[in-house]
C-alpha cells in the first residue's frame, strides 16, 4: 500500500498559503500542547503541507459565490476527496496516498473555481448582450431622430422654395399686370394723343376756315386775334344808327358766328379826335351798341357779345386829314379764341 512512487508532481504554492499555514501551524501547535496536557500518551497527527495546501484551495473555492452556485457538485467532490486525504493522513500516516488525494482535492477545487469563473463570465455576457442591445437601440433611435430632423429640414426647405416660387409667381403676375396696365395707359395716352391731335387738327382747321370766311368781310389776323373793321361809311356822320347798306355786313357776320358757336365777339367803338372826349366816348359807345343790336337782331345771342367804348384811342390813320379822320371813325369786331377768351388789349 505504501509503496513509494517514482513520480513527483510539483504543487504550485499559493501566495496566501504561507500566512494561512502559519496561522494553522500556530493553531495546531496550540492544539498539540493542549492535547499533550490532556493525555500525554495519545499521538496527534503532525502537519502535512500537501494537506494544508489542499484545505486552503478547497475553502477558497467554497468562499467563491459563483463557484458555490455553479459548481456545487465539484465542490462536494473536492470536499469528499479532502476528507479522504485527511483520513489517509490522520489514520494511516500514508504520505503518498495523502499527497495523491490532496492533489485530487486541490484539482477539484480548481475545477470548481474555473466553473465559477465561467458562470461569472456568462452572466457578464448576458448583461453585455442586453447592454449592447440597449446601445444599439439608442443608436437606431438617434439615427431615426436624425432622419426625422433631416426630413423636416428638407420639408422646410421645400416649403420655403415653394413660398419663394409663389412669391416669384406673384411678382411675375404683378409685373405682368403692371405691364398690361402700362400698355393700357399707353394705348389710352395714344388715344388721347390721337384725339388731341384730331381736335388740334380740327381747331386749326376751323381757325383757318374762320380766317377764310372773314376775308370776305376784309377781316385781318392781328396779335389780338381776328379783327373785322367796319368803317365810318356804315354810320351817318355824328350819328349812331346803321345805314341800311350795313345790314349786309351784319348778316354776313351773324352767319359766321352761327358757324363758330364757340367764338365770342368784342365790339369796340372808335372816334376821331374832333369834339370833346366825353362826346366821343358816348358816340363810340352808342355805335358799338347799335352794332350789337343789329347782330342780336340777326340771331346772335347777347351773351356772346361784349361792348367797349374806346373814343379817339388807337387811331389807325392821321387825324389831321379828312380821310384819316374818316378811317379813325370805326367799329372793330374782335373774335375770341375757341375757348371764348379775348387776348389782352394791345
Amino acid at each position: 500500500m505504501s509503496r513509494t512512487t517514482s513520480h513527483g508532481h510539483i504543487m504550485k504554492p499559493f501566495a496566501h498559503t504561507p500566512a494561512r499555514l502559519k496561522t494553522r501551524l500556530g493553531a495546531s501547535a496550540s492544539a498539540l500542547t493542549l492535547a499533550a496536557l490532556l493525555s500525554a500518551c495519545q499521538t496527534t497527527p503532525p502537519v502535512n503541507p500537501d494537506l494544508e495546501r489542499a484545505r486552503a484551495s478547497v475553502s477558497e473555492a467554497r468562499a467563491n459565490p459563483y463557484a458555490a452556485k455553479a459548481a456545487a457538485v465539484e465542490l462536494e467532490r473536492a470536499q469528499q476527496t479532502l476528507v479522504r486525504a485527511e483520513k489517509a493522513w490522520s489514520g494511516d500516516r500514508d504520505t503518498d496516498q495523502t499527497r495523491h488525494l490532496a492533489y485530487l482535492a486541490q484539482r477539484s477545487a480548481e475545477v470548481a473555481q474555473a466553473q465559477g469563473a465561467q458562470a461569472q463570465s456568462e452572466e457578464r455576457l448576458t448583461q453585455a448582450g442586453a447592454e449592447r442591445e440597449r446601445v444599439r437601440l439608442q443608436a437606431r433611435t438617434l439615427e431615426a431622430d436624425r432622419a426625422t430632423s433631416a426630413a423636416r429640414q428638407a420639408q422646410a426647405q421645400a416649403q420655403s422654395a415653394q413660398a419663394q416660387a409663389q412669391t416669384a409667381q406673384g411678382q411675375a403676375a404683378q409685373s405682368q399686370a403692371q405691364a398690361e396696365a402700362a400698355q393700357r395707359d399707353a394705348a389710352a395716352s395714344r388715344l388721347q394723343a390721337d384725339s388731341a391731335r384730331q381736335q388740334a387738327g380740327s381747331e386749326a382747321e376751323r381757325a383757318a376756315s374762320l380766317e377764310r370766311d372773314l376775308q370776305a368781310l376784309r377781316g385781318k389776323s392781328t396779335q389780338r386775334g381776328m379783327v373785322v373793321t367796319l368803317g365810318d361809311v356804315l354810320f351817318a356822320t355824328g350819328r349812331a344808327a346803321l345805314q341800311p347798306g350795313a345790314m349786309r355786313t351784319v348778316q354776313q357776320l351773324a352767319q359766321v358766328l352761327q358757324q363758330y358757336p364757340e367764338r365770342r365777339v368784342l365790339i369796340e367803338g372808335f372816334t376821331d379826335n374832333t369834339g370833346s372826349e366825353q362826346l366821343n366816348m358816348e358816340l363810340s359807345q352808342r355805335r358799338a351798341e347799335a352794332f350789337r343790336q343789329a347782330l342780336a337782331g340777326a340771331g346772335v345771342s347777347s351773351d356772346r357779345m361784349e361792348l367797349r367804348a374806346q373814343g379817339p384811342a388807337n387811331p389807325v390813320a392821321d387825324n389831321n386829314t379828312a380821310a384819316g379822320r374818316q378811317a379813325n371813325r370805326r367799329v372793330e369786331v374782335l373774335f375770341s379764341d375757341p375757348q371764348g377768351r379775348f387776348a389782352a388789349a394791345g
Partner: protein
Amino acid sequence: MNAGRTAMRFGIPVLALVLITGCASGPKPDAALASGSSSLESARAAGAPELAAVEIGDARSKLEQARALAQAGRPRDAIRMAEQADADAQLARARAGSEKAKRAVDEVDASLRTLREELARTPASARALP
C-alpha cells in the same frame, strides 16, 4: 550477444507476466486509464490545447506515464497517475470553458466600447447638420 538479446526479448514479458499474475488479486488500472483517456479527449474537444495548454499537457504526460506504469506492472502507481491525469484533464476542460467565456466577454466589451464611441461621435455630427 545474440543469445543475450533473445533472452532479454523473452525475459521481460515473461517477468512482466509473472509479476501481473502474481498481483492478479490486486487493483487493475484499466478503469482509471480509460477514465483519464476519456477526460483527456473531452478536454481536447473543448479546445483545451489552445485555451488551457499547460493543464492538458500535464494530463497527457501523466496519462502516458500511467500507461507505462501499468505496462511496468505497477498498477497502483498507474492508477494514481491515471487519476491525476484525469484530474488535470478535467481542470483543462474547465479552464478551456472559462477561458472561452472570458474571451467572449472581452469581445462583447470591445464591440460595446466601439458602439459607445460611435454613439458619442454621432450626436456631434448630427448637431453639426442643421
